[in-house]
């Protein structure tokens, strides 16, 4: 059953059309990676799934929650869609635990004890149960990103969006974040990732989406796409990536 369904998504920045009618479905429990060159529209598409980018046309449907361009209230959608960012975006004035607890408290209005328990559990899930009281500035980049993942998970989203979540990390910190994502995938979390980690995409993802010029021009299982690209654009992209 499809959990996320995007139909006819269009988006322009000024006179530049960055999404030219994108259709895409993600089933529950599926892990989908969006790849493509920078400027291909993959980040914009990802950000439109939880309404951070307002779309000009099309419909976004997540677990029965429909959003079209006229929609003002995005709260119901955002309760179902979590997001993790390249720059972590932790709240610097709050400790790791408070970062996780904040939305539980002010959005979900959970009680004090429940909030605390949920936050501890979420932090434990990303291996940072012992960092509850640490402030973001006291954590490494990888730890900060794991707190950000915990913060999203605690809201119990139906799908988690990851926007190049390892791109801002030092190379030695990438794996601790990827292994958390891998674990989530194994636990059946629905994930949509924009990533440049091709090996990770190949190993973990069920489906790969290749974007080029604001359109999805190829999609399918990673092995098929990497080994037998059917468009010259993807062949060139794969060649470029593997040459690195």
């Amino acid at each position, binding site marked *: 059953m499809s959990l996320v369904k995007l139909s006819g998504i269009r988006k322009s920045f000024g006179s530049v059309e960055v999404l030219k009618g994108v259709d895409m479905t993600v089933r529950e429990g599926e892990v989908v990676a969006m790849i493509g060159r920078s400027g291909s529209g993959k980040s914009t598409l990802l950000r439109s799934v939880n309404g951070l980018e307002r779309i000009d046309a099309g419909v976004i449907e997540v677990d029965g929650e429909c959003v079209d361009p006229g929609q003002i209230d995005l709260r119901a959608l955002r309760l179902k869609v979590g997001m993790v*960012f390249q720059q972590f975006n932790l709240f610097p004035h709050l400790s790791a635990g408070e970062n996780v607890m904040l939305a539980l408290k*002010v959005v979900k209005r959970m009680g004090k004890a429940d909030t605390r328990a949920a936050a501890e559990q979420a932090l434990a899930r990303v291996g940072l149960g012992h960092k509850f009281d640490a402030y973001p500035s006291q954590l490494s980049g990888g730890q900060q990103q794991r707190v950000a993942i915990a913060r999203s998970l605690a809201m119990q989203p139906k799908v988690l969006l990851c926007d190049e979540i390892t791109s801002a990390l030092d190379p030695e910190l990438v794996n601790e974040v990827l292994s958390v994502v891998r674990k989530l995938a194994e636990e059946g979390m629905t994930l949509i990732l924009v990533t440049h980690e091709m090996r990770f995409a190949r190993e973990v993802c069920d489906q790969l989406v290749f974007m080029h010029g604001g359109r999805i021009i190829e999609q399918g299982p990673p092995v098929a796409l990497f080994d037998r690209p059917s468009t010259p654009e993807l062949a060139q992209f794969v060649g470029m990536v593997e040459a690195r």
Partner: protein
Amino acid sequence: MLEFSFWDILSNLLLAARWTVLLSVIAFVAGGLAGLLVLMARVAPVPPLQRLAKLYIELFQGTPLLMQLFIVFFALPLVGIETSPWTAAALALTLFTSAYLAEIWRGCVEAVPKGQWEASASLAMGFSEQMRWVVLPQALRIAVPPTVGFSVQVVKGTAVTSIIGFVEITKAGTMITNATFQPFLVYGLVGLLYFALCYPLSLSAKALERKLNVAR
């Protein structure tokens, strides 16, 4: 003719200084509260509210405080609202302060990285929750030094209320000069009193700036 000793002059000025201080405090506190409302309207994702707040700010920043004071003092009675110099002075300075503080704080809110808005929006927080829990706590750190710095402008701004007959230091100075014919001495003391009020504020603004810079 009555003789005024130096002590007479100084004690009268000091008594009048109470009103300068009280007026400054009222204008600053009430202006701060009103300024917070204007700020919310200025940054809320509601274009008509933004425009209204912007107009308000530009109106008060683009006209002399003295004119604002005249309008409050002379125009309100025309529409049937009696104003004493006290209420007119307090009201005009409150409006003036709220506009400036709202604009100062808007800059501080905009200095909070966009990612903070996006992360909190992704957690399904609405505008007021984002402001209350995420943006304002961070903007506050940035806002303290310029806010304290602006309080100096408020203290000095109280001087113009002497025009409508509110007896604060400047007005007291004028009255004493008229009686003593010693303008240099009297206004010299008035100036020193303003300096004594403002200089500690400037110093604390600088100290706070240093302190908050170190903390982050």
